[in-house]
């Protein structure tokens, strides 16, 4: 910190019925992160200030919030990244319903996760082992770094500004999960129909907002979403693949699945 031995945050306090920013000033410590200041506010000023946190080391993804409007982990946002005297606001994630203060109802993400067909491995090798090479697991390991902070979901404008889209859109976190399963060297399950329809991959118009806020630096758009889109295109919009699927009926397409020429789900209006 600088010579200023106090820090001030304006923290959103309230419930689903409304609220406002309250300013709190507490003594500063060297190397403080925003979550440290929140804890100090609890200890000295507002004991009932509601916040989620666990590891305080960027590993659990609990303390997601909007700091000066940016989707961030509070535990990984250093106070010395702000200019002295800069107005600093801390608000709950906007995309999810407010429970209280900085705590939101993130059950949407858990409900979407339940819909994903599980991992289903192919048979073992003849010698009873599972052989996978590092170069084959590298790209999926990138997706497994996800700490489920849901900041990508928070910032995704398909659901951030359009509550109705939540019904038909799983969001970047779940696209990362789907990509991890689809690209897993051992997996045999088929999720492409779900990706295209129920998960609503077509809603994403690749603005990369999710990638920009990911605290784990997962290349969500380039490495997960775009490859999934390519798979959907070759599965559903390649006429040869469509005929082959009809004839060989691998994974038996259901009558609700669209054939070639049917439209993508509508993107939200900008």
């Amino acid at each position, binding site marked *: 910190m600088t010579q200023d031995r106090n820090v001030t945050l304006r923290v959103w306090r309230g419930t689903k019925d409304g609220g406002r920013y309250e300013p709190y000033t507490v003594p500063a410590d060297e*190397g403080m992160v925003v979550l440290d200041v929140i804890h100090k506010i609890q200890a000295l000023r507002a*004991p009932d200030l509601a916040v989620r946190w666990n590891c*305080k*080391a960027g*590993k659990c993804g609990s303390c997601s919030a909007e700091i000066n409007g940016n989707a961030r982990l509070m535990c990984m946002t250093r106070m010395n990244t702000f200019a002295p005297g800069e107005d600093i606001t801390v608000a709950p994630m906007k995309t999810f319903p407010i429970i209280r203060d900085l705590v939101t109802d993130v059950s949407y993400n858990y409900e979407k996760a339940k819909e994903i067909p599980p991992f289903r491995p192919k048979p073992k090798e003849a010698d009873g082992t*599972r052989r996978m090479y590092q170069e084959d697991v590298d790209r999926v*390991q990138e997706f497994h770094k996800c700490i489920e902070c849901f900041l990508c979901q928070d910032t995704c404008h398909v659901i951030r500004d359009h509550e109705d889209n939540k019904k038909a859109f799983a969001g970047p976190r779940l696209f990362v999960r789907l990509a991890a399963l689809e690209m897993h060297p051992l997996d045999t399950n088929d999720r492409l129909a779900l990706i295209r329809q129920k998960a609503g991959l077509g809603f994403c118009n690749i603005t990369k907002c999710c990638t920009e806020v990911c605290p784990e630096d997962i290349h969500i758009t380039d490495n997960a979403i775009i490859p999934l889109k390519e798979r959907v295109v070759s599965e559903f919009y390649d006429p040869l693949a469509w005929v082959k699927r009809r004839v060989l009926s691998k994974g038996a397409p259901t009558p609700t699945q669209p054939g070639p020429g049917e439209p993508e789900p509508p993107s939200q209006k900008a």
Partner: protein
Amino acid sequence: MSREGIERHDYDVIVVGAGGAGLRAAVEASAAGAHTALICKSLLGKAHTVMAEGGIAAALGNVWKEDNWRVHFRDTMRGGKLLNNWRMAQLHAQEAPDRVLELEEWGALFDRTTDGLILQRDFGGHRYARLAHVGDRTGLEMIRILQQHAVHKGIDVYMECNLQRLLTDGGTIAGALGYWRESGKFVVFGARAVVLATGGVGKAWKITSNSWEYTGDGMTMALDAGADLIDMEMVQFHPTGMVWPPSVRGLLVTEGVRGDGGTLKNAQGKRFMFDYIPEFFRGDTADTEREADAWYEDKKNNRRTPDLLPRDEVARAINTEVKAGRGTPHGGVYLDIASRRPAEYIKKRLPSMYHQFKELADVDITTTAMEIGPTCHYIMGGVRVEPETAAATVPGLFAAGEVAAGMHGANRLGGNSLSDLLVFGRRAGAGAAAYASRSHARAIDDGQVEAAARSMLAPFEGEGSENPYALHAELQETMQSLVGIIRTDAELTQAIAKLDDLDGRLERVTVEGNRQFNPGWHLALDLRSMLTISKAVARSALMRQESRGGHTRDDFPKTDPEWGKLNVVTRKRGGRLELTTEPLPQIPEDLRQLVLSEEKQPA
């Protein structure tokens, strides 16, 4: 208290805690046909397991084919200074490989060997490279895979639900009472069997690697229900926590740094661990820098580097160096991998350590040595369990993971925790399901529910002046300064008096606001369990008049073979803690010989 209509759910088995042990227990209980619920204080996937870094210890033999369960068992018993429950250590060493391979069947992607198998890494106290890992984020991989597996099995999960009391019927488990964090409303679970998988109590110390969840609540619930705790004096201080800046003090730095080649140095640049090799490990430990460095590549002809002595030894050594004035400016020592391994290797093997130091301390660990010091990390003591089924001493109660005791004796080896969670989580789930299938649902005693609910609401009605945050800070200061790495009769006696004082003041804690997601109230409730378990730790530490593993007495510096035959047992009777000593289970002679055998010296 006016009687509110309390929400009620009924299950065969409830599992309390959704870290590695709880998830694995729930999966097993559910697979055995028990109607199972998993109940956790945080959101699913945020439990402390997510922070585990280095890996899962299992004698897969992928890197060193010489490794097997016997070697792992020997390492575990010696690391635990022979205070371990031998049967738990044996089951653990035998079953850990299957539990790791099972995770792979469920989708885990561990780092690979060049021939496509699970890669294993070196860690303290392990003879061979044994830890299956994913960079330095192994716990995240483990919890996420278990979480997804549990969700797909359709297990009912209750998140942000904090259980506070076990309910009993004539001394047998009948269920549990807790509250929803979101609404503050009470909830009762009727259950034939309860599996505790609630972790430890590290939040009672000031410098700690543990999160807010580590409040000793499971141990307290077990005590209240009549169960035995053992080995409560055995607390692990991890040698390498961050020391600077103050806001990150205590944050864990993985032992994998040393496993991958990092070394400890004092302010004079000396690799001081060579001065701290205890007689017990002399045969297993390199005594020159040349041999220590050669060991990473050639384990047949070299002994292990003293940087990778068990954690209790390394933590004490660092403590001594700092006290002797050979520490860093911020009161730690240096952990140097920058001068010993290439930058790319460090970033690949230790990505989250790289990130953590860069973001939080402005230190690039590929060019600069880290400043580290001991941090409260783990408690070896906990609920006494029966090895095969993880059953506690109260019918219907089971415990697995850090909340349980015996497996690690006086000191836990790194990597043995994640494997413990899997091995005994599975056994606890199976044990609880089997118990539930041959028992019947018990009546919930309204009197117990009402008494507990009334006491939980007391902080709202108090007119006292005690602030829960201030009381917590005093508790942490007390445990840090008086019940730390090095202990004495005088300091422990002082600590016990202070804890009794805090206990009296706990009744005067008053909280502001209402019951809806109110952290001040939650902390007031957690203080009760933190204080109860802190007292069990301090009094057990006073009773054990020797030094062993995680328990070092300045006034009794020697390890005493007679004390090595005894567990310190804590019980609650008539509302008061009672402590006594009881004999350890006897290890069979062939296994005793294996544990005491000396390793072959290099030629």
